[in-house]
């Protein structure tokens, strides 16, 4: 019955705490201080209610109150331009370099089958039917055709390329969940098709228009698919060999790297889709200009990934500490701004 008094005294505090929590973003500094002391009091009320063996509805209520406010207080800071910039200046390229081995493996998994496909079809043109799906083979004559398109048509193509290529990259990545085998398969398959098609187009005497067509967007597009595959391999290898941490922990770390890389992949494919729809097929752009553009795009993307963000971060917490899920290591973030 002591508890009845405790309840009567504390209920007002709890209601006040809930009211503050509902508009956490707009509290002034005085209210914020009161909010924090009320939250501390609620946590100690919970501990006390539990040790005193208070009424179960009181304990349950305090439990959900503390849980909900803990979630609001210990959250990651919301979107700020600073954090957004830092993602691109440091976090993304650093993650890329951390996954260097996977990127190299994925590159080889695409390039080696491409070379093999090229050599095989070069030796025996009939083999193209083994490597490439029939709808690709039928279109060989039309590859690299240049046509005058209207803006509406070009937007339609942009949209199609975005939808198609991003979906392919998603599948290349997520199929890595099968111990990495899916990503492995998708990379090899795409590489083999690419090499075989190059050889077949050469035999049809259309090398120059074909290469001109794919040169502007092809580099960044293939690189994006390689990165999606690398992200899948990152997850797959964490499943097979978690290293010194638990498998669950290794998976979460791999997931964080893979998610970061996939952000980059989507952006690269957006750029590629615009170039592929508006510049690659255009008769108004000279072939050589397309080659130069392709080289420029790919080399600047590679330079960005390998060189950006090499100087250490200035500022309090590094993104890795901030984003880590372990309660022991994570720095408590300031109250969320909603």
């Amino acid at each position, binding site marked *: 019955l002591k508890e009845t008094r405790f*309840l009567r005294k504390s209920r007002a505090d709890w209601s006040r705490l809930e009211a503050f929590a509902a508009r956490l973003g707009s509290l002034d500094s005085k209210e914020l201080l009161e909010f924090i002391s009320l939250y501390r009091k609620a946590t100690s009320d919970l501990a006390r209610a539990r040790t005193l063996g208070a*009424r179960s509805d*009181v304990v349950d209520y305090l439990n959900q109150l503390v849980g909900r406010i803990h979630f609001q207080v210990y959250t990651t800071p919301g979107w700020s331009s600073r954090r957004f910039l830092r993602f691109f200046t440091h976090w993304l390229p650093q993650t890329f370099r951390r996954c260097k081995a996977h990127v190299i493996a994925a590159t080889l998994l695409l390039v080696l089958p491409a070379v093999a496909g090229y050599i095989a079809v070069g030796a025996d043109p009939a083999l193209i039917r083994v490597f490439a799906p029939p709808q690709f083979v039928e279109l060989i004559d039309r590859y690299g055709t240049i046509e005058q398109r209207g803006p509406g048509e070009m937007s339609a193509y942009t949209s199609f390329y*975005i939808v198609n290529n991003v979906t392919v990259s998603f599948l290349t990545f997520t199929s890595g969940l099968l111990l990495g085998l899916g990503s492995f398969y998708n990379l090899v398959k795409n590489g083999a098709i690419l090499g075989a098609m190059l050889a077949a187009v050469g035999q049809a005497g259309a090398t120059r228009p074909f290469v001109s067509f794919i040169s502007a967007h092809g580099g960044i597009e293939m690189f994006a698919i390689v990165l999606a595959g690398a992200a899948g391999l990152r997850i797959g290898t964490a499943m097979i060999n978690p290293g010194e941490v638990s498998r669950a922990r290794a998976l979460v770390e791999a997931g964080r790297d893979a998610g970061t890389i996939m952000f980059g992949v989507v952006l690269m494919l957006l750029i590629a889709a615009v170039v592929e729809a508006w510049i690659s097929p255009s008769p108004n752009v000279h072939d050589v200009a397309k080659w130069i553009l392709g080289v420029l795009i790919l080399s600047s993307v590679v330079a960005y990934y390998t060189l950006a963000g090499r100087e250490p971060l200035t500022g309090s917490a590094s993104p890795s500490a901030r984003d880590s899920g372990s309660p022991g290591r994570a720095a408590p973030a300031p109250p969320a701004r909603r």
Partner: protein
Amino acid sequence: VQESPAGPDFVAIETPEHVTFTYEIAGLMSRSLAAIIDHLIQFVAALVLFAGFLGAMGGFAQGGLQQISMAAYALFGLAIWLLIWGYFVAFELLWRGQTPGKRLVGIRVIREGGYGVTAGSILIRNLIRVFGDLVPFPAIGLGVMFASARAKRLGDLIAGTLVVRDVAWTPPPALRIAEFQRVADANLVNDLRRAAIHRLKPEFVRTIESFLVRAEELEIASRRDIAWRLADPIARTLGLPAPDPERLLRHVVVALREEVKEA
């Protein structure tokens, strides 16, 4: 994060204030219900988009605006694709781990340790949605959820997230003892005190209090049933008649209060 003493359906989290609280993990049923609601919303939105698209195309074609109708086609394709892939990501970002379906059902995505979701964890858990939930792998998705201790989807395992109940409660009311005292029968109170009512086990008293606090909200039949179950052992031990069990319980609380006051 550790296994909670409260059972497998709860996850215990220790705050930096060194107080442990628990989240109730959302079950398979509530998560499926939320998913069904979300997919229905997606479906209806797609229908609306499609109707708008057909209307626009008809108009443009009549006006001979070939290029514009192509652009409309492009926009439509992109919109549908964004609806499929972006719906969950966008809502979980904006509503901090909730979608319309999850909000209706009262569940929320959080990260292990009780932290709010990050953009990266949202992207990962929803990218993997295709793999775990859709053809040809729904069996894998469900299998993982059954096998995992906390009903986690594959996406949750890799994103380090879990889905918990998130419903705001109203503060529990205090017992209205003053009211009970006003209408209490002094003789019955004295009988109870003479019968050494203070020897009742504290847990039992708390159960009585919980019941009296919530009695108004209970259905008539279960209210009568619980009152009888609580009052009957007391009445029998003390040899008192209990024609109205709830009334007896109210008197027990009043008698205990007076014991405390005099002590």
